[in-house]
């Protein structure tokens, strides 16, 4: 999709609008997009400063800034991406995170109308990714470029974006703020994709939800019959065996995950196991039977 916006590929149908202006047939070089590639695509034989200056130097003479102006812009951008001391280094002499920041500065140099980032942190290790993610969000808040960021890492998408679009097989499933996407998934695909959800096949009757051998009473607006229930780790909580409308499960395994514990539970034979999160202070034994309350039923017709 980014390649369509950038003009590197031709759409088979539809139109592409930049600020309401049709750009569908505008050649790449006239679109003024800033493209940051997953594998950086820096010019190997140019040093950092020349890489950044490239987009300015290739402009036609009448719109090209003077060489002092270019130098000033490059220094400014180097400052922005925090690489001021490395102007004369070659790309091969930089770390992955530094290379990606050079690529970003190079894309920003042409004052793009839209900034396109194609899994820019995909090739970096987790720690660098987290730092760069925060830094990029900060940079975005300061410069305000319209930015399109493609990633497979949903955590990255939800943390960075003002608006998230979830695509499946080339179709947009949902566009919304991270809160909307997380709290009100529009389709079964989104519900299953976001938030480590597990999909359980369930049977619906009027005001009843049947999971395997168990049934609870809930309000739902769906027609009776087969449906899909998506359960995230935060949707179930352990409950005291009093009160009604509880599910029972058996602990399959307990794993430590960061500050919390993950408990894997079976709700019945033949059903996929679900996970719940326990704070580190609490624990559970393997094989133990537990009572569970379903906090948020995420139901979709199947």
């Amino acid at each position, binding site marked *: 999709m980014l390649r369509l916006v950038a003009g590197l590929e031709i759409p088979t149908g539809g139109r592409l609008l930049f600020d309401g202006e049709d750009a569908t047939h505008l050649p790449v*070089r006239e679109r003024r997009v800033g493209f940051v590639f997953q594998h950086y*695509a*820096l*010019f190997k*034989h140019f040093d950092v400063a020349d890489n950044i200056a490239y*987009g300015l130097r*290739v402009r036609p003479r009448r719109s090209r800034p003077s060489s002092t102006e270019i130098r000033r812009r490059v220094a400014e951008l180097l400052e922005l991406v925090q690489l001021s001391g490395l102007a004369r280094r070659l790309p091969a002499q930089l770390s992955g995170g530094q290379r990606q920041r050079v690529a970003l500065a190079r*894309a920003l140099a042409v004052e793009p109308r839209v900034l396109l980032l194609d899994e820019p942190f995909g090739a970096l290790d987790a720690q660098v990714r987290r730092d760069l993610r925060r830094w990029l969000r900060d940079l975005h808040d300061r410069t305000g470029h319209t930015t399109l960021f493609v990633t497979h890492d949903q955590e990255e998408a939800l943390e960075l974006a003002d608006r998230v679009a979830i695509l499946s097989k080339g179709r947009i499933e949902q566009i919304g703020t991270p809160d909307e996407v997380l709290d009100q998934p529009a389709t079964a695909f989104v519900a299953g994709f976001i938030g480590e959800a597990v999909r359980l096949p369930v049977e619906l009757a009027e005001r009843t939800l049947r999971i395997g051998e168990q049934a609870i009473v809930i309000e739902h607006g769906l027609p009776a019959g087969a449906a899909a229930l998506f359960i995230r780790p935060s949707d179930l909580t352990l409950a005291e065996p009093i009160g009604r409308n509880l599910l029972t499960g058996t602990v399959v395994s307990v794993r430590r995950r960061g500050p919390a514990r993950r408990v894997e539970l079976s709700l019945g034979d033949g059903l996929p196991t679900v996970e719940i999160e326990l704070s580190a202070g609490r624990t559970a034994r393997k094989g133990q039977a537990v009572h569970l309350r379903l906090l948020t039923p995420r139901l979709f017709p199947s």
Partner: protein
Amino acid sequence: MRDSATAEGTLARWALIAIAVAFLGLFLALPLLAVFSEALRKGFDAYLASFNDPDTQSSIGLTLLIAAIAVPLNLVFGVCAAWSIAKFDFPGKSLLTSLIDLPFSVSPVVSGLVYVLLFGAKGLLGPSLSDWDFKIIFAVPGVVLATVFVTFPFIARELIPLMQEQGTSEEEAALTLGASGWRTFLTVTLPNVRWALLYGVLLCNARAMGEFGAVSVVSGHIRGLTNTMPLQVEILYNEYNFVAAFAVASLLAGLALLTLVGKSFLEWRYGDGLSAVRRP
């Protein structure tokens, strides 16, 4: 104790090295030495005097002229072919790739014959060419054509694997930054392949100057007109003019040595980029 599982015993190692060195000495170093010693057998003055022969001088001139035409032609062709094969997908691409290798697999004599059959007096296009009073066979244009044909894989073959490996992302980056296609080629594509290109030019040039088979068929051996250096060597040798024959041969051998030095230098200077290249 062996250093590693693949290390052979000391004896086997030395035997292998000895065989390789002996083979090289016998088939490469010794003949090379013979060329220079034969050329200088009657002294340095006789060696220099062999170059006073006007026919020899014209053969050297012709060889330089042919290389000066064939190498730039193949430079342009090689870059075009490598560019289109490495960066685009089109029907017939694999056919083009194997066609480029054709001159390697066909005997040079056969390629020369093809030109005679095409352009010769009794050939396909011969009669119409003689109407125009334009001679190709047994004339310089034929020699140039044959040389271009024989040498055309060298540059393309050096560039294709390297360009394929590098992919198109740098070019795409340049385009999104507003560079034109030509500008992208000059500032991004060409610098990325410059060492491999130079290497291909060296090999192409060595072959263009040294080609014998194809040139021999089309040139007609007209002294002072269509004889290149390798052909002149043969003629002089057949006339028992050994010193002169070996003197001209020593020039060709010197060229080969220069090419070797240039090639080693390029490999040393730019090992990474060239190691990705398959040798023809």
